């Protein structure tokens, strides 16, 4: 178990990167405390797998350092970093039994046979694989195979970190949920640092204590799931997390306030940064339909069970609102009321309003 620190990390797959655009990862500084559950969330191609492979040592970064407990491990190969990784597609040794699969990383490191047996018994119990220890791994279902890959990481009691690279991609939806809670449970039992890479917000938000959201090789925000939801630092986070994502309305900024098509909009606090492209950001959960506010036409009403999603058109911009009851008719003229404490302005994508005093 270890604290993981990434210090001014940059990576380019090109031999001679010329500009910023050539970097798959652009200057990353990050500290993950020992024993935490972390998620790396972002769309495909945002650099999260590159970052993961740099931590595991499969990729050597162009610049910067990877530190485990303050010790620089950047030049070390994967087997000397004491890490474990679970891949997207289950990796198992086909010809071996489940037992031998679990024993493999220990035997390679010359662990005493009786110690190997104790560890396997322990881990097999945790993963509920006890009954399958004698079967050949090749004949198992994908979720059992994925459990074995996890098990190979867990059996070593000296691992610094276990990394998961979209491990539930090939698992059936119903088993996905089961395996995810199993993972969470395992983390609580053994408190080893875990990093979970995914493009699925539900997986990230349910698994991790801290979520790192990435876009185009840049970390846009790091925080608890609640922080990411409540106060996105970047429009990308607002849009990527939540269903539907945050509403973004183009606005004009003048005299420290924002206007949407001439109509002033109340904000959480004063605007402290200015930029070329300004937008108002508000989550659908904080948009109400009332007598006052921004006029709009209802375009679509969808009852999704727990609540109702209303899609309205406000001067050419689509705005979603989530309400509990009394949905308006399609085509009705309504007014959208924004909760001022949750209404923010983003300049060039980044948050530009100051947080109101709690």
């Amino acid at each position, binding site marked *: 178990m270890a604290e993981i620190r990434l210090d001014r990390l940059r990576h380019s797959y090109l031999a001679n990167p010329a500009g910023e655009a050539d970097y798959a990862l652009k200057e990353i500084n990050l500290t993950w405390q020992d024993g935490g559950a972390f998620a790396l969330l972002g769309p495909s191609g945002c650099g999260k797998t590159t970052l993961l492979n740099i931590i595991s040592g499969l990729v050597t970064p162009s610049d910067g350092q990877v530190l485990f407990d303050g010790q620089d491990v950047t030049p070390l190969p994967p087997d000397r970093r004491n890490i474990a990784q679970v891949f997207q*597609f289950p*990796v198992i*040794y*086909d010809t071996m039994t489940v037992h031998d699969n679990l024993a493999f990383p220990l035997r*390679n490191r010359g662990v005493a046979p009786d110690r190997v047996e104790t560890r396997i018994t322990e881990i097999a119990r945790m993963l509920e694989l006890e009954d399958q220890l004698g079967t050949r791994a090749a004949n198992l279902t994908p979720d059992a195979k994925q459990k074995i890959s996890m098990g190979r990481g867990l059996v070593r009691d000296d691992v610094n970190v276990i990394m998961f690279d979209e491990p539930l991609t090939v698992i059936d939806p119903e088993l996905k949920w089961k395996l995810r809670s199993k993972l969470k449970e395992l983390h609580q039992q053994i408190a080893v640092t875990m990093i979970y890479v995914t493009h699925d917000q539900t997986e990230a938000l349910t698994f991790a204590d801290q979520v790192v959201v990435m876009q185009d090789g840049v970390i846009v925000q790091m925080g608890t799931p609640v922080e990411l939801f409540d106060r996105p630092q970047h429009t990308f986070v607002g849009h990527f997390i939540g269903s539907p994502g945050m509403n973004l309305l183009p606005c004009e900024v003048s005299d420290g306030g924002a206007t949407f098509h001439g109509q002033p909009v109340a904000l959480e606090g004063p605007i402290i940064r200015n930029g070329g492209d300004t937008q108002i950001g508000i989550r659908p959960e904080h948009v109400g339909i009332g007598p006052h506010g921004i006029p709009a036409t209802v375009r679509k009403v969808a009852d999704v069970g727990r609540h109702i999603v209303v899609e309205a058109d406000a001067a050419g911009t689509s705005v979603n609102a989530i309400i509990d009851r009394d949905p308006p008719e399609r085509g009705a003229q309504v007014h959208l009321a924004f909760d001022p404490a949750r209404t923010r302005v983003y300049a060039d994508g980044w948050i530009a309003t100051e947080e109101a005093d709690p």
Partner: protein
Amino acid sequence: MKTENQRAWFFVLPVLVLVAFNALVPLMTVVNYSVQETFGNNQFFWAGLRWFEEILRSERFHAALGRQLLFTVTILIIEIPLGVAIALAMPRRGFWVPVCLVLMALPLLIPWNVVGAMWNIFTLPDIGLLGWTLNNVLGIDYNMTQSPVAAWITVIVMDVWHWTSLVVLLAYAGLISIPEAYYQAAKIDGASNWSVFRYIQLPKMKRVLTIAILLRFMDSFNIYTEPFTLTGGGPGNSTTLLSIDLVKIALGQFDLGPAAAMSLIYFAITLAVSWLFYTLMTRDEP
């Protein structure tokens, strides 16, 4: 619910007709010859299983079969590991991949009788590059038309030269289909190079290697053209493999009955070994 429908047979019919004309009918004529005796004039007499008995007891057949087995086993022992080793050493990506693949495919593109003729000239002690070099530069007394050992070595080296590429290409296809994650996982698990080969590469190559061994077994067991053009079965009978012997009996001596019986025994052995091998190799696959 599944409905039984016999119409499918109708679609298989053209293939059945085709197979019947190019395989079953000729095979049946062989069966026909194998139980009869002829003295020419298109006159045939019933012989029962006499030819089969005669062939199975004949020392000449035993010797040819022995030579055949020795040849097949030797080339398999050399070609399979060598092919795997070359495939492992080949680059997986980059500029050299197509170059290596084309170089590997070249021997396979040469017609079989040309291979035999090529090696025949190549090994001539007076004008062949290899034969001349061995005799005059390295001082080794080498003449494959006189020494059975030299003839055997030449036949085997020729086959290895001609056919190892097939094993290489098949093994290589198996190797490049292994996802990168397997190697990464093995690295993280601290596996040695040998373990990677033993537990990842070899199991993943098992299917293609089964096919490679099967193809090489059948081809080498039935081989005729190359050794015939190279040595003609000599010196003496030392490189007379089963097929060469068969042709001698059938077309040299015109003993159609015994030749037909021998063909069938030969065919049965090839079929039985192939079936047994394939069944054993694929028995525990899902």
